[in-house]
C-alpha cells in the first residue's frame, strides 16, 4: 500500500464499528468500503436520500436514477430505504448518523474544520458539508498531512472559511492518527512507518503525544 490515500482509507476503515450508520464523503472516504472487514456490517447513508448504499453497479445493473452524493451510480443493499432531501437532512441534523468521514483543507488544534472553500477561490459549493459535520455524532477527517504546496493542514487556527467550529473527533493522515479528547489534540498512533519527528515536521498545531 504505497498510495497515501489507501493508507488513510485502510486505517479509517478500522474506526468503523459494526452496526453504525455511516456517511462517507467523496475522495479518500469513498475508498473505505474496499478496506472494511466483511464481519463489520455498517449501513451507508448518502445525503441525497438513501440509507443502504451498495457497491458500484456492474454495467448491466446501472440505474441512472440511483446515485450517491458524489453523483456516481450506486446499488441498493437488501433493506435499503429511500427518502427525500428534507428527511435525509433531518436524519443528519437530528443526530441519527453515527459517523461521518470526510476530507478537509484545514483542521485547527481546537477541532475546527475548513473544507468547503479557499479564500478568494471559486468553489461556490458547500453542499451538505456543514450539515454533516454539525449533525453527525462523530466526525472523522481523512486527509494527507500536507497540501500539494507542502503546507501543514493540521494547524493552530484555520485561515480558510470555516465549515464548523470544534466538531472534529479524529484526524487520520498517512502518518498519524490524532484524537480530540476533552478539547485537547492528542497524537495516538503513527502510521506508514512514520516517526514522531516526521509527524512533528508536518504538523503546526499544538498536540500532546500519548501513543496507544
Amino acid at each position, binding site marked *: 500500500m504505497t498510495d497515501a490515500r489507501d493508507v488513510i482509507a485502510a486505517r479509517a476503515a478500522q474506526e468503523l464499528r459494526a452496526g453504525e450508520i455511516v456517511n462517507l464523503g467523496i475522495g479518500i472516504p469513498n475508498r473505505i468500503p474496499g478496506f472494511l472487514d466483511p464481519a463489520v456490517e455498517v449501513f451507508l447513508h448518502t445525503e441525497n436520500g438513501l440509507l443502504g448504499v451498495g457497491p458500484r453497479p456492474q454495467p448491466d445493473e446501472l440505474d441512472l436514477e440511483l446515485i450517491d452524493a458524489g453523483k456516481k451510480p450506486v446499488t441498493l443493499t437488501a433493506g435499503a430505504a429511500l427518502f427525500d432531501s428534507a428527511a435525509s437532512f433531518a436524519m443528519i*441534523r437530528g443526530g441519527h448518523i453515527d459517523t461521518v468521514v470526510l476530507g478537509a483543507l484545514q483542521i485547527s488544534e481546537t477541532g475546527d474544520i475548513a473544507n468547503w472553500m479557499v479564500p478568494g477561490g471559486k468553489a461556490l459549493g458547500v453542499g451538505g*458539508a456543514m450539515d454533516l459535520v454539525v449533525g453527525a455524532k462523530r466526525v472523522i477527517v481523512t486527509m494527507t498531512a500536507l497540501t500539494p504546496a507542502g503546507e501543514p493542514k493540521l494547524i493552530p487556527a484555520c485561515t480558510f472559511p470555516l465549515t464548523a467550529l470544534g466538531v472534529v473527533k479524529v484526524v487520520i493522515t498517512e502518518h498519524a492518527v490524532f484524537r480530540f479528547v476533552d478539547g485537547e489534540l492528542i497524537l495516538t498512533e503513527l502510521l506508514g512507518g512514520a516517526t514522531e519527528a516526521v509527524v512533528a515536521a508536518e504538523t503546526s498545531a499544538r498536540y500532546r503525544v500519548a501513543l496507544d
Partner: protein
Amino acid sequence: MAAQHLSAEEAIAEVKDGDTIMVGGFGLVGAPLSLIDALVEQSSAKDLTIISNNVGEPGRGLGLLLRQGRIRKSIASFFTSNPEAVEAASSGVLAYELIPQGTLAEAIRAGGAGIRGFYTPVGAGTDLAAGREQREIDGVLCVLQPPITADVALIYATWGDRLGNLRYRRTAQNFNPAMASAATLTIAEVAELCEPGGIEPESIHTPHLYVNRIVPSTLRLADVPGAGT
C-alpha cells in the same frame, strides 16, 4: 381540485419576468427535464430567481437557461457542478445565495408547511451566517433561516395519477416533495400517468392537493448526453 393536464409548453406559459421558480433534482437526477426544456425553448421570461440544489451542468438542464442570461439570481447549495454558474456568480453577472444543502431543503419544507423560520446550528459562526440573526439556544450557537417559497415549482415524478398524486423513484425523489409543497403554482412532470387508484394510497409520496398541473414527460434522463456518468 384535480390537477390540470397540459403540455409542457402550455403549463409554463404563465411564467413571467421576475418570477421565482423552484426546480427539483440533485444534479440532473430527479430534475424536470421536459419542463426545463420548455422554459428554455418556449418561454422568454427573464430576470428569474431559480431555487435548485445546483444550476444544472454546462449546457444541460438549468445550465441552458443560465446560458440564455435569463437567471437573475440563483439560490443553491452547490454551484460547483456547473463551472459556468460559478463563473457567472464570481463575476457578478449572477446574483446568488449559497445555503447549506440541509438548510435549503428544510427552508423549502418550512415554506410549504407554514413555518415562519427556524434556528439551526448548521452554518452558525461561518461566513454563510453573515447578515443573519444568530443566537445561542441551550448553549449551541444557531442561525435563523427564513422559509423559502416560490411562484412556481417545476418537479419530476416517475409515477402520477390524473388527480396529481405523485410517487418518486430511487434517488430521483430529493428536493421534489418539499418543492411541490412550497410554490403558488406546482407543475409536475410525470413519466408514467395512471388513473386515480393506480397508485396504492400508502405509496403516494406527494398527495394531489399540492399539484396544480400535470405534464407528460417527453425528455428523459437517458436522453441527455452523458447523464449518469
